[in-house]
Structures are given as structure tokens and as C-alpha cells.
């Protein structure tokens, strides 16, 4: 793989990761107390959990199944979707049957997908709770983007001549750097693509391009300097 393609691949991967993180419904500490919509943990933990599961499933397809590149990326996306889907499903079960709150969004009056009324179900003093349909769908889409981004990073790094382990280690570092940049842009909680904070996405993409570009430039330069050896 020539250096320019590799850098482009890594930048696209970085953008996919950033878009993915923006789509995942993150509630942070307030959601852990059922006081905000989303899964009750931080952006980085959720995105990393989903992204790394994608990396594992993509790695399996890439090295063992022997299928075209597109399938490898798709399997990364599907692995991520499964991981986040299960997390959100179990989270919803706990919110509904454990805490006893209906999944509801406080950012919109009607769910954009099901057209269900939202505002009357929001408990006073909270910003929604659980994962309504729109957040769930948004999360699944986000996990797909993150998973494809993570596996694209890994595949690109492996294609330019890094060993499996080294490519995985650097892919995790790359994933985290981009996921945290996106998390800073969100600053706490986001419900999904219907959240007003989603409009901040272009800024995160701009900084993602800068960070991914510099990081991939460093990696490619180092490998070319060492003569492509592993």
C-alpha cells in the first residue's frame, strides 16, 4: 500500500470514528442515576468497548476467514453494532424493570422515528432517561461507523507492513485519540443524531482530520525510515 493511500485511509478511519462517537447515546454519570437519556457511562468507555469489539471481529475475518476487504470492514461494523446493541438493550432492561422509568428523550417533543410523544413521560428534574427508539437506532448507526473506522485503521496499519500485534496496539491508540477528541466536542452527554449537540460535528471532524493526519504521517514516516521492516 502506498503512503498516500495509507494516510487517506487513516484519515477516513478517524472521521468515521468521530462520527460514530457523536451518534452513540452517552449519558455519563447522570444517566447512571437515570437522570439523563443514554447509557450510563462515559463516551470513551462506550466507544472503546464498541470499537475494540469491532477490531476483534474484523481481525478474525481478515486473518482467518480470507474474505475481501469490504467484508472485513463490514464485519468490524457488525461486531461493534452487536456489542453496543447488547449494552443498550441490557441498559434499557435495567432502566425499565430495575429503576422503573420509561425510556424517553428530553431533547425532542416527538420521537423522530416512532412519532411517540416524549415530553409528558420525562420525570421532573431529569433530562430524560433510558434509551428511546431514536437513541437506540442512532447508537447502532454510531457503532457501525466506529467499528468500520476501527477495522479500517487496523487493516491499513497491517497493510503498510506492521505486525499483527503492533498494528492492533497502534490502532487502539489511534482509536482512543480520535474518540476522546469527539468526546471533548460532545462535553458530557448526547442523545444521538436528534440532539442539538450533534450540530457541532463539523468542528470535531476538522480537528479529527488534523490529529489523524499528523499521527498517520508520523507512523508512515517511521515505517518508511526503518525500510518497511517489522
Amino acid at each position: 500500500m502506498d503512503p498516500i493511500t495509507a494516510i487517506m485511509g487513516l484519515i477516513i478511519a478517524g472521521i468515521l470514528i468521530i462520527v460514530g462517537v457523536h451518534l452513540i447515546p452517552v449519558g455519563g454519570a447522570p444517566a447512571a442515576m437515570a437522570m439523563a437519556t443514554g447509557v450510563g457511562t462515559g463516551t470513551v468507555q462506550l466507544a472503546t468497548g464498541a470499537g475494540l469489539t469491532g477490531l476483534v471481529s474484523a481481525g478474525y475475518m481478515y486473518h482467518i476467514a480470507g474474505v475481501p476487504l469490504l467484508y472485513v470492514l463490514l464485519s468490524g461494523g457488525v461486531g461493534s453494532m452487536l456489542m453496543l446493541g447488547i449494552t443498550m438493550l441490557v441498559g434499557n432492561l435495567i432502566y425499565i424493570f430495575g429503576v422503573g422509568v420509561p425510556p424517553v428523550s428530553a431533547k425532542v417533543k416527538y420521537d423522530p422515528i416512532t412519532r411517540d410523544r416524549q415530553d409528558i413521560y420525562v420525570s421532573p428534574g431529569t433530562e430524560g432517561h433510558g434509551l428511546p427508539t431514536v437513541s437506540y437506532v442512532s447508537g447502532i448507526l454510531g457503532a457501525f461507523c466506529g467499528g468500520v473506522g476501527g477495522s479500517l485503521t487496523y487493516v491499513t496499519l497491517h497493510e503498510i507492513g506492521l505486525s499483527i500485534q503492533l498494528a492492533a496496539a497502534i490502532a487502539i491508540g489511534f482509536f482512543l485519540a480520535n474518540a476522546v477528541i469527539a468526546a471533548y466536542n460532545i462535553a458530557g452527554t448526547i442523545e444521538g443524531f436528534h440532539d442539538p449537540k450533534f450540530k457541532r460535528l463539523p468542528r470535531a471532524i476538522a480537528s479529527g482530520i488534523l490529529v489523524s493526519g499528523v499521527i498517520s504521517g508520523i507512523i508512515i514516516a517511521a515505517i518508511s525510515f526503518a525500510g518497511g521492516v517489522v
Partner: protein
Amino acid sequence: MTVAPSSGGVEAKQIRSDLIAALGILSIAPTYAATMSHYLAFLGGFGILLANLWGANSVRTVAKYGIGTGVPSIGMLGLGGSIIAVMAGLYFGHSLPLAAPLIAFVLALLVGFVIGFSARYILKMKIPVMVRCMVEICCAGSLLFFAHFATITGSIEITGVEELTRTGIIMLIFIIGALGILHPYNACLGADENQQRTLRLALVTGGTQFILAGITSILFLGSAAIITIVVGVLAWLVAFRAFVRKSFEDGIVCSTGLIPEVETK
């Protein structure tokens, strides 16, 4: 027991960040010393302590502003950025292994600057120390990685590090390094947080890494690993005693959860 009143309002004496940064950069000396002989590998542990101290202090400085995503994110970001710098540094320095930590340090500086710059000026985060602290955390992370390499394998050459990545130990270093840097402030934060207690906890997490590096080094160094483990346990004990004493002094620890008798009367 009675609880001593906390210093409430009186600003505790601060250790200057520059001094801690200098100590952190000095961690490169024990790292080099550790590569001289397998029996000196334990010296790398002091590199771990110093680099960890620097990273934890920088996390404290930046996280005080409230970054909105929790303290853990910045530790992960720092180590995520520095692992890239470290690997690139190893490739650049493959013919001159002793230069690798210095090259990685410079690259970590660059990565940290780019991340800090984009967070401060593109994402417009209102944290004036963002750029400086991101640079510091990434640099501390790169030094921490090399201190671990030296302690565990007794060398900082790419062949030794390849062995660490092949066995997956690199991820252990990644996660204990990130936790070591982010945990002190994350555990101590609050209205009564003070630098001395946080930094003592940083030494405790550094000591834990020292011990874990010692246990891992059995695989590479054999019996010489025992020295690392013993020195690590001693370092941990000293730091932990200091941390617990400071916590009692600050009056944040009661021996029971009940309100002290003196105050209820």
C-alpha cells in the same frame, strides 16, 4: 477517634509544576541505567514512579477545569497518543536504540501539541492550560512506556519491544500506565482535593506499576525480577503509608462511618 479539622480555605503549599516536570524528564536516567545489566533493571521502576508522578500532576492541572467527559478520558488519550509516538520512536531509532526514547519524547511532544491545539482552538474548549497539559501528559506517557520496557525486558531495543507486543504485555503496560496517571486525581477530586495528597496517591499507583512490571519481568529476566518485585513492594509500602497518613491528617478518613462523638454533643 476525633477528626482533625481540615485546613479549610487555607491554600496548601503547592509544588511547582515545572519542578515536577523536571523530575519527570529525569526519569529517563533510571531508564537508561536499567538497560545496563539485568540486575539493574529494577532502577527502571524509579523511572516509572517519576514519569507517573509527572503525568498525574498534569492530569490534575487540566482536569481541575472540568473537561466534561470525566478524568479517565484524558489519561486514555495521553497514553493513546504516546503509544503511537513510542512505536514511531522505536522505528526511527532502530539502528541507534539509545536515541529511541529521546525521539519518542519529541514525537510525543508533537502529538500532544496537535491534540491540545485542536482541543483548545478548533473545538474551542475553554481550558487555557490544555495545550501545555496535553503535551506534558503525552511526554510523560512516552517516558512511562520506556521505563516499563527497561524494567520488564532490561532493554529499550525494538526486538525486546516486539516481544512485549507479541505476548500482549504492551496492552498491560498501556492500561496500568493510563490508570496510574488518571487514577490519583480521579480518586482525590472534590472540594477538599490538595496536591500533596494527589501526588502521594500518584506514587502509590506508580509503586503498583513497579510491582506489576517486576512480576511481568520474570518472563524476560528470570531471577533478577525478584529484586524489582522487592524494591517495588518497598516503594509501594512507603508511598501508601505516606498517602494514608496524609489522608488522616486532612481529616477525610474516619475510623467508622459514624459522626465523631465530639461533634454530636
